[in-house]
């Protein structure tokens, strides 16, 4: 489909951005094959596709980081500047990457005007200019603050303000919501709508299809390096979108009901009066063997800190964690592991994986001692175990020896899950297990969690995603460090969202 502009029908005239029959190859792999896309001025365009579908390649062409092997990019009907002319690109397009491009030790003001301070820096004037800019976009941040001290949300707003101040009227947002909580996402969307109303064109990349329906007017789907469809979002329903992404019809929102866990089942994990000052207080939770308990809440609710406490990453100020009948020594990961607690940490890149080691070594780190005596790791047994993990958890990889850094986000997360389950834990703690993971991988990850629960593992799953929570037998909602609601299976989305936002039920 080459004339997507007509489909959007938002504005007349030349499209703000256009990719015409672009192709890009990296060695033997085709990253993008004859993809055309055009974005009408002022529209908010969604770009979706599974990991590896070619989204990032298309973004790198649109931002001028790479030039297409064939085809062309155009802005407002005029051909794009040469790749070497960075400043010309910056005036046309700005990208807010998933990874922050803020320099933590410099002030907000300096980050905003980096390399545009003038040859001699006048600090007072620079801070005033920054304050004006921040005020213009209603970003409540002190320009003299150290940029590294900002929260994720503020940092993103600073990046957006910086992009706009460079004169770009086209912004690419690469998974801007991946690290925000629900209220922050709402605020971000409010801003995006306001920007859109002033004529800013946006390309929005996200794994949360729901977000696309709430902010975008048009959606383009890529699959296997090819363009699949471009259509107004109103014309494509959720299932059709997923089908376009996966090439087959799947309904992720339909979750098979789990057999109820009886009241007489033994309690596998008991949290008693657990308190961590500044995060949460007085948490009493029982999780029975084979039960999946979801925990959700906003970013400040303390839910992540709670899960990290159970996993041994944090030491509680008060209260106890009990597995079976045994209390778990607080604040120690080895003690938690020994007690039978497996943890899938929040940030798989920072806490989850060792990028240069192989899949096999990463997946078997906690059980490496069982592959031989005196610390010897028998290569054959390591490989065999890793192969069985790769099959069981549906990890798409060249083989057990491939470095974990070569995996896509979804497959890397499966390795983290495989490692957490490698010790056959009686308790599994997961923190946002499907964040930044494509639709297919989400399914296999949640399937593996359910399978573990079916064999009697007690699961505590902290998540922001309703799709994850649907698999839980009950969902606890935390608000400002306390559990404010316990919803049995069968809840509706509005129940959860209302409880998370602290709205009266």
């Amino acid at each position, binding site marked *: 489909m080459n004339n997507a502009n007509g489909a959007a029908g938002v504005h007349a005239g030349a499209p703000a951005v256009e990719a015409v029959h672009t192709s890009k190859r990296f060695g033997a792999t085709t990253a993008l094959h004859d993809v055309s896309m055009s974005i009408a001025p002022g529209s908010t365009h969604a770009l979706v596709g599974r990991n590896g579908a070619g989204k990032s390649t298309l973004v790198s062409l649109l931002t001028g980081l790479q030039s297409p092997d064939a085809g062309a990019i155009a802005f407002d009907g005029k051909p794009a500047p040469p790749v070497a002319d960075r400043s010309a690109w910056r005036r046309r397009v700005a990208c807010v990457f998933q990874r922050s491009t803020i*320099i933590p030790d410099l002030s907000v003001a300096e980050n905003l005007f980096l*390399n545009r301070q003038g*040859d001699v*820096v006048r600090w007072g004037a620079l801070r005033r200019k920054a*304050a004006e800019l921040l*005020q213009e976009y209603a970003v409540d941040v002190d320009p*003299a*603050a150290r940029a590294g001290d900002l929260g994720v949300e503020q940092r993103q707003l600073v990046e957006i303000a910086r992009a706009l101040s460079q004169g770009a009227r086209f912004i690419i947002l690469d998974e801007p919501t991946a690290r925000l909580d629900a209220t922050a996402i709402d605020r971000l969307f409010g801003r995006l709508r306001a920007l859109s109303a002033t004529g800013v064109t946006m390309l929005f990349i996200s794994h949360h299809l729901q977000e696309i329906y709430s902010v975008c007017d048009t959606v383009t789907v890529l699959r296997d390096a090819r363009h699949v469809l471009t259509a107004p979002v109103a014309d494509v329903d959720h299932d059709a979108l997923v089908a376009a992404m996966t090439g087959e019809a799947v309904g992720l929102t339909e979750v098979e009901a789990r057999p109820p866990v009886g009241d007489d089942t033994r309690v596998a994990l008991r949290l008693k009066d657990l308190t961590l000052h500044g995060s949460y207080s007085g948490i009493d939770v029982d999780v029975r063997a084979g039960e999946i308990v979801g925990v959700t809440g906003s970013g400040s609710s303390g839910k992540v800190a709670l899960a990290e406490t159970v996993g041994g990453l944090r030491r509680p100020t008060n209260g106890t964690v009990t597995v079976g009948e045994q209390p778990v020594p607080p604040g120690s990961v080895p003690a938690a592991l020994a007690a039978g607690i497996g943890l899938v940490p929040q940030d798989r890149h920072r806490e989850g994986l060792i990028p240069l080691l192989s899949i096999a070594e990463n997946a078997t780190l906690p059980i490496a001692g069982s592959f031989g005596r005196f610390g010897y790791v028998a290569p054959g047994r390591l490989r065999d175990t890793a192969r069985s993990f790769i099959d069981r958890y549906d990890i798409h990889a060249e083989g057990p020896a491939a470095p974990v850094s070569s995996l896509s986000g979804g497959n890397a997360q499966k390795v983290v899950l495989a490692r957490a389950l490698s010790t056959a834990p009686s308790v599994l703690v997961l923190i946002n297990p499907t964040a930044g993971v494509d639709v297919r991988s989400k399914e296999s990850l949640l399937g593996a969690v359910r399978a573990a629960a079916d064999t009697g593992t007690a699961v505590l799953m902290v998540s922001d995603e309703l799709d994850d929570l649907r698999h839980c037998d009950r969902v606890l909602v935390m608000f400002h460090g306390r559990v404010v609601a316990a919803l049995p299976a069968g809840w509706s989305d509005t129940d959860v969202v209302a409880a998370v936002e602290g709205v009266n039920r």
Partner: protein
Amino acid sequence: MTTVPARLSGIRLARMRDLTLVPAILLLLVVGAIVDPVFLSSANIVNVLQQQTELSLLVLAETIILIGGRFDLSLESTVGLAPALGVALVIPAASNGLGTDWPSALAVPIILLVGLLVGALNGLLILRFGLSAFIVTLGMLIVLRGLQIGITGGQNLFELPPSVLYLGNATWLGLPLSIWLCGLLFAIGIAALGWFRHGRAVYAIGGNVDAARAAGIRSDRVIWIVFMVGGTLAALAGLLMTGRLGSVAAAQGQGMIFTVFAAAVIGGVSMDGGKGTLFGALCGVLVLGLINNILTLAGVSAQWIQAVYGLIILVALILARVTTGKAQDS
């Protein structure tokens, strides 16, 4: 928005971080005065300052390189090689020269040029060929020292032209010229890093090189220039040392690099780049200089002074870690 009070506190905090070593310096002055009344005499203080000029120039160079997120071990060998080569090219073969007998007016420009070229070569290997800065500059440290020994036959050079001696030897307005020179260079450095776009670019590159590139900073070029400035400053340090001592020793500068890094880190410069100030680094130099002087005055025996000095540096590093509350290499 209520930015004004927050801004003031921001500035105050930044200044505070810069001033953390000032109490330590005052304390050392008191300790020194107690150990030996001679300590506070102007002759001794001037002596301490002059001895630290060479070190402080190396710290100035290393700090800029560290802020840019790289490091350079070879500076200490440049301190020896640059003056040795510059002098050997102009003095007669009878005084261990190379026999080229170039006009002696060329000695100082050659010395500075050697430093510049060493920095440029480091930059070439690290940035263009993508080699590890640690191994490149460690290799350079050994090669440069070897070159100096090869050129001079392992001899110290004594018959130096007056132009080479002047900078490290002259006195202006009652103070050694080298102190004025150091003060001036630090002032220029502080201004360049604090108030000039290219100086701020060094912080940006050290803090997050991808973000710096995305903002249009030519990071490789900036870092290359930083390496060349660093090499030139090291050569100048060698020139000052030559003038102060009246000769070019075969081992000139050897072993200084540990003290250089220690002074920078004690002064709050991060080994990971993007963090630290020249003022802080200068305070680090003063702290180490005063400690060294006090140890000498206190009569610590020559056989033990190195062990004690090294130990005190380690303790100072621990204290700096405790007071700043941040790990130094993570």
